[in-house]
């Protein structure tokens, strides 16, 4: 297991190097000028040239790339071209709300979609199954921003149960945190609830047709034990894969939810950075997100061994 883990970590190095080169070139080839974002629309060419020079943007691309990679290897991701603050400090300011939102959304996803998927499979073809599948189609079809606005309109504007926008950290108390995170969490979770409940249902249906399930039933075991102890555990691998990649997708795809609910997270930070052509900030966010993807995929693979004793890594 340890050598497998080490091998996977080493394999991540060329992946990250490729991503670093790709994103660096992509950004430099994209039209736009960070100096203009600093100086504003009405700046003169001399002002823009002076700013470019002070930021080192007048240097050859190869020098800029090597300087960036060299600093990064030493743990220095550079400063924002626009605000002149260390990019890791800026990411540090904004990662908390995004992680909180993604975690709550993932918890809601697991808590809601697993029982729904199991129920739908258990009552395959029945009313419950049709209801769950209809909900799933709805979750897939309605964009997150529409779900967000509908939730705000009903629960914040009309019923006044929740605030219309904003974020409070856990440090301010569990109540305040949940009060502000439930609606955006649910909005973000909606599409994943649809996805995971469908995946759970399909996976469970496949497993419920297996011989050992029939044997378990023939032995007189209750539905609960058959479903949760025998079937769900064996159906878990595809579900784990979807849940794991879903979490990574949530972290990198929360921008709409953060915008609708005004949550100061990474999603909004990266949009801001792209609009201002803040190269070091965009590069750092993409690299760290890519790193998170690699790590999450590795953890998913390792978790297979925990759920299925037949899987062993060497």
């Amino acid at each position, binding site marked *: 297991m340890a050598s497998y883990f080490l091998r996977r970590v080493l394999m991540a190095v060329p992946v990250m190097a490729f991503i670093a080169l790709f994103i660096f070139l992509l950004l430099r080839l994209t*039209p736009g*000028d960070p100096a*203009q*974002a600093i100086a504003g629309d009405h700046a*003169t060419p001399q002002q823009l040239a002076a700013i470019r020079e002070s930021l080192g943007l007048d240097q050859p691309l190869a020098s800029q790339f090597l300087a960036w990679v060299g600093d990064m290897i030493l*743990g220095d991701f550079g400063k924002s071209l626009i605000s002149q603050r260390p990019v*890791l400090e800026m*990411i*540090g300011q904004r990662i908390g709300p995004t992680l909180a939102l993604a975690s709550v959304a993932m918890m809601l996803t697991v808590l809601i979609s697993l029982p729904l998927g199991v129920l739908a499979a258990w009552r395959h073809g029945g009313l419950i199954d049709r209801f769950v599948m209809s909900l799933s189609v709805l979750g897939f079809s309605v964009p997150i921003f529409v779900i967000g606005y509908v939730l705000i309109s009903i629960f914040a*504007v009309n019923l006044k149960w929740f605030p219309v926008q904003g974020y409070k950290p856990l440090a301010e108390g569990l109540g305040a945190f949940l009060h502000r995170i439930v609606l955006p969490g649910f909005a973000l979770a909606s599409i994943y609830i649809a996805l995971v409940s469908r995946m759970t249902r399909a996976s469970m249906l496949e497993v419920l047709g297996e011989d050992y399930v029939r044997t378990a039933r023939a032995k007189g075991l209750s539905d609960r034990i058959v479903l949760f102890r025998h079937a769900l555990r064996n159906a878990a691998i595809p579900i784990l894969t979807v849940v794991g990649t879903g979490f990574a997708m949530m972290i990198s795809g929360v921008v709409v939810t953060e915008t609708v609910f005004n949550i100061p997270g990474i999603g909004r930070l990266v949009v801001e950075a792209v609009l201002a052509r803040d190269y070091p900030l965009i590069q750092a966010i993409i690299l760290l997100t890519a790193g998170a993807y690699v790590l999450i995929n590795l953890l998913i693979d390792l978790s297979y061994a925990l759920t299925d004793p037949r899987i062993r890594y060497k």
Partner: protein
Amino acid sequence: MSIQFRSFAAATLVAGSLYGLPALAETTLNVVMQAPLRTLDPILSTAQIVRTHGFMVFDTLLGMDAKYNPQPQMADYTVSADKMTYTFTLRDGLKWHDGTPVKAEDCVASIKRWAANDGAGRTMMAHVAALEATSDKQLVIRLSKPFGQVLELLAKPSPVPPFMMPKRLAETPSGQQVTEMVGSGPFRFVADQYRPGDQAVYVRNKDYVPRSEPMSWTAGGKLVNVDKVVWKSMPDMQTSINALQSGDVDLIEQVTIDLLPLLKANDEIKTGAINALGSQVTGRFNHRQPPFDNPKVRQAAMYALDQDQLMQTAIGDGEFYKLCASLYGCDVPLASDAGSEYLAGSAKTRMAKARELLKASGYDGKPVLMMQPTDLTVLSTQPIVAAERLREAGFKVEVASMDWATLQSRKNGWQPVAQGGWNFFFTYWGVSGIWNPVVHAMLDGSGSDTAWSGWPRNARVEELRTAYIAATTLDEQKTIAREIQQIAFDEGFYFNAGEFQSVAAWRTSLKGLQPGPLTLFWGVAK
């Protein structure tokens, strides 16, 4: 552990604790500003949001009152009889936010930095023989040749007002941003609560001594009646409106016109213009590339375009826009109707004139590349309407859609269209940044590489601008400004596409909001 990773960890912890600050018994004004505050240096940036931030933290030697007159602010002044020597005496009690006293040498360094970054400031310095501190409290500007705009420029509220800062900050090298926000203005910037592009926090400067005169725009007493002002960035307007209705925010600086009906039905919310001056939408021709290197073709395009149609498209409600010929803004002292013949008549008759002019111009059918910013609501629709009008007149037009950042970058190049150049685009300017020929960058007729995009060249305009600088009476200035305006129309410097008014919305619990050339946070109470 590297410094970077330590700062990352520290920032994460600090951010967590800041979100969790307990509610204090203080008056906090929560405001959604018209744009995110991404940079802080109000001398290096020409953006309106950075200028407004500048007025929170920094102060100016002179302020501009509601009658467009320069008035003492940080300093009182005297002018010699020959108007060649200006003496400024700092008033008592001025302190920087770090507790040190404001000295004349700080102001000298600040004026120099401002002048190096501002076009009008550079023009002023070209007329200055000496700028020096004669004592801790007094500085003197001695002119080498007549320049009638010294006071107006030192009081100008936009673009790039001459903000005063400590000498050590004012001596920051050219092109480099000042990131330490130490001013002497009525608010202090709270650096550790600043999240670039998301939130900026200001607290009342308890050491600030306001002037005794009544507040008038950026002149007079800057009385701060709230403890804290929090600027929030909300990229989604519907979210901002929800937050205003629920009381999470007190003021939205700029509401999109189509969402105003949502607010008008709410008794707890008022809407109106708090920025006394509007913004002029301008269609800029590239004078260096065909077909708009031909003045006849530019004239044909000016007749084809229609102010009312363009404003209807972008703003919709006639209550919020004005149509006038004045290139300096519709309601400023220099406003005149010179050149209005290019805008007069119905859209139909003007189209006939456009066709006639285009035919006579020798236009060879070369396509016009019109840049369209798709991510800026106020400028995204005009290119579509303008392109149709130009096509109707006989132009071939290609609309190139792009984001605003790309447009901003592309507009700076004068290469042929096939090599990434351009022919025409729309932008807008706050009237406070165009209200006379010195500050109005679009009326620069030098045609030089260092001029603002478009590069019109006209020697007579340059002569007149020089004459305007030397003029010392308003009547003289009006005559000169009028002639410049007429030439700018005849030569097609740009198309004036009308003036719109931004509309703010605020909760009725807010008192003392006063109109100004920008959103003013002194005088406001909650």
